[in-house]
């Protein structure tokens, strides 16, 4: 059956069983491979996307439940080629090694910054605790989120 989805501001249609995971729908049916598979049990955060602005583990979200809601993936984060401040901050502090966790990290970080523009170190750790980086770049990711929050506040002023 066909499911109507709103992804990155565009109407998309997928011929898929509604029980299929949102992650598989994005990756295997719609060609959006930015969200990654890491565990299939919502434990690693590599598959994180935003649904109505909330960081969501797409690997354990049936696509049927996301129909009609506003889905944002890493591919939809930059606007007209201009990177989101958090994407830029990841580059600036080299907050990645293999980069496989990066899309999920950025989506979790964006959701945090959207609801808390000035997070403390503990806020960041708390919000990102469900995202795994096996390369161990956590200190740099914390720094990137902090940097992006400062950049956003500067722009807001």
């Amino acid at each position: 059956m066909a499911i109507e989805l709103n992804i990155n501001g565009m109407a998309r249609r997928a011929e898929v069983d509604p029980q299929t995971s949102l992650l598989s729908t994005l990756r295997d049916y719609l060609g959006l491979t930015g969200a990654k598979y890491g565990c299939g049990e919502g434990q690693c955060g590599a598959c994180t996307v935003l649904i109505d602005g909330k960081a969501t583990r797409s690997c354990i979200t049936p696509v049927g439940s996301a129909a009609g809601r506003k889905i944002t993936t890493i591919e939809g984060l930059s606007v007209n080629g201009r990177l989101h401040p958090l994407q830029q901050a990841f580059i600036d502090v080299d907050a990645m090694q293999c980069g496989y966790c990066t899309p999920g990290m950025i989506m979790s970080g964006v959701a945090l910054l959207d609801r808390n523009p000035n997070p403390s170190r503990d806020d960041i750790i708390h919000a990102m605790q469900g995202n795994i980086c096996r390369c161990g770049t956590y200190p740099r990711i914390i720094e990137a989120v902090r940097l992006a929050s400062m950049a956003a506040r500067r722009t807001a002023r």
Partner: protein
Amino acid sequence: MIMEPDRYELNEKPAYRFDLNRREWFEALGGGFLVLVLAADVEGQESGGGGRRGGFRGAPLPQEVGAWLHIGQDSAITVFTGKVEVGQNIRTSLAQAVAEELRAPVESVRMVMGDTALCPFDMGTFGSMTTPMMSPQLRRAAATAREGLIDLAAKQWNADRASISVRDGRVVNGSQSATFGELTRGQKLVATIPANPPLTPARDWKVMDQPVRKVNAREIVTGAHKYPSDMSAPGMLFGKVVRPPAFGAKLASVDSKAAESIPGVTVVRDGDFLAVAAPDPRTAEQAAAAVRASWKTEPQPSWRELFEYLKANPAGEPQRAQHSGSVEAALLSAEVKLRQTYHIAYIAHAPLEPRAALAEWSEDGRLTVWTGTQRPFGVRSELAQAFHLPEDRVHVLMPDMGSGYGGKHTGECAIEAARIAKAANRPVKLVWTREEEFTWAYFRPAGVIEIASGARRDGTITAWDFHNYNSGAAGIRGTYNIANQRVEFHPAKSPLRQGSYRALAATANHFARESHIDELAHAVGMDPLEFRLHNLTDERQKNVLKAAAEKFRWTGFKSGAGRGRGIACGFDKNGYVATCVDLSIDQRGAVKLHRVVTAWDSGAVVNPDGLRNQIEGANVMGIGGALFEAIEFENGRVLNPRFSKYRVPRFSDVPAIETVLVGSKDVQPAGAGEIPIVGLAPAIGNAVFAATGVRLRSLPLAPQGVPAGAA
């Protein structure tokens, strides 16, 4: 006898066969300037670890090409190397090396990596060899190209060679200048590297030694980079392997009628291999679940009796790494004696991207596989063997992958995808689940290490008897000056499939040695730092110890009452490390790391920020193996094959990490992706002792917290 320090680095003998047709290849590139790096230039220098199974160290190699560098008529600089990018940042650091010597912007250098059709043979990306081996060779190739371009300009301009220079990607003579492409237009120039091409000395580096940003960072942060598991092909099916219930199980019978009745599903059975292909992943899962298979299994050892098993089941004779003086006599006569046993669990690499492959057969029986591996040419050999093909009919491509840490040397997923694709007659993608990755890959070897030692009351170590069962021999010899030493590695039968892991056995050997050294220091009543310095003469080893201790403010730190400091040092693969740890233990026994200081010396630095990133990452990854990671298994089954049951380091585990780089510019750079990890576990164990008086001698140290009082 000759040691094999890297016994677990490779599972099988590499086959090197590379039929280079230079003319054909050059035609494809369309002229320009090509510099060839002979394989002997690269491999011939690999003497760091001594002899190896497979004979590729020190053994004669075919006089073949190890890498090449091409400057096109459009000035594009392209480097072809069989090394691969797995997160260690060599796509950037190698481009820096080439840009430095060619006086060109880093962005103008394109790296083509790990493609067996385009790149020359390479044994694989492991052993921290890229920076010490491949990087200097690419610099020499780039320097050769630079000098060749100057020659060309001198000829074309009829100018004095000495007045011509190269800068900002242009060849310049006074007011006259040309791009690389303008000079090489219409030509097909081939050069090999002369004996001593003029390399830029480290003090004059402008691109190397700089914290250049990752060259493909933008693709990564926008989700545009395609990892192996992101690949697709028109008409592609999704594969799923029907796994046996235990290691070594034999397929007794299969009923696949229900699975085959699902539209679009193909069931594959070949010996004990059982799998399905389907038009989408969900159908593949359903079809695999619908296959009814019965398996014959055998009883197997469990993790609870692992260490007894390893001691009781040798696999061959002990291998002696070091023997000097008279160990027995020195042990007997020592004023202070100590004897302890250390244990090391199996752990999993758990790269965030599990094994993945996309396999496609052409109509004339050629096989193309995109897969994540540290050894694309090794995987090509495995595929050729599995399907009885000549290697030139197998093409392996390795998109920069979601890491490996030594865990992706083998090609099992590639073989499985290719076998299913052959049966389904369509391209097939196979991505292992996390559970499969935790179960059907291979593990860091478990081990038992027994140490007996003796010292004088003045703090001089006089006897050292070190026996490692199964862990491996990497880093088995310390840098301490001890007159009477016996150091042996005892191979054992491993209940689980085991292989390389970041730093190999150096982690286990350093854990045991540096814990024991700490125990000895306490036994003679000396400060652990002072005790180490007293027994060392290797200046680089002493320097990293002093640098770490100074930055950490070792002197003046008060341990006790649940707070402790620990120190450890080590050496392997031409890298020296010292690590200091500050931690506390709460009333429930939970360990909280506050601060880690690592001093590191791997000689000259190519990319200081990339290097710091690797050292930080090694420390963070090391927290898992040090404190809580362990594979639990029973009767051929892994009992904790998920992130919900196998704890890896997360944000809240990470302390403040400070890095001191003390390498000299005058020393050839060594690799740094592995060895910084080895100091952490013993430094933590030593700090736990300082904090609580409890000595922990097993890795992981505190999976359930530090037990009270059991010293």
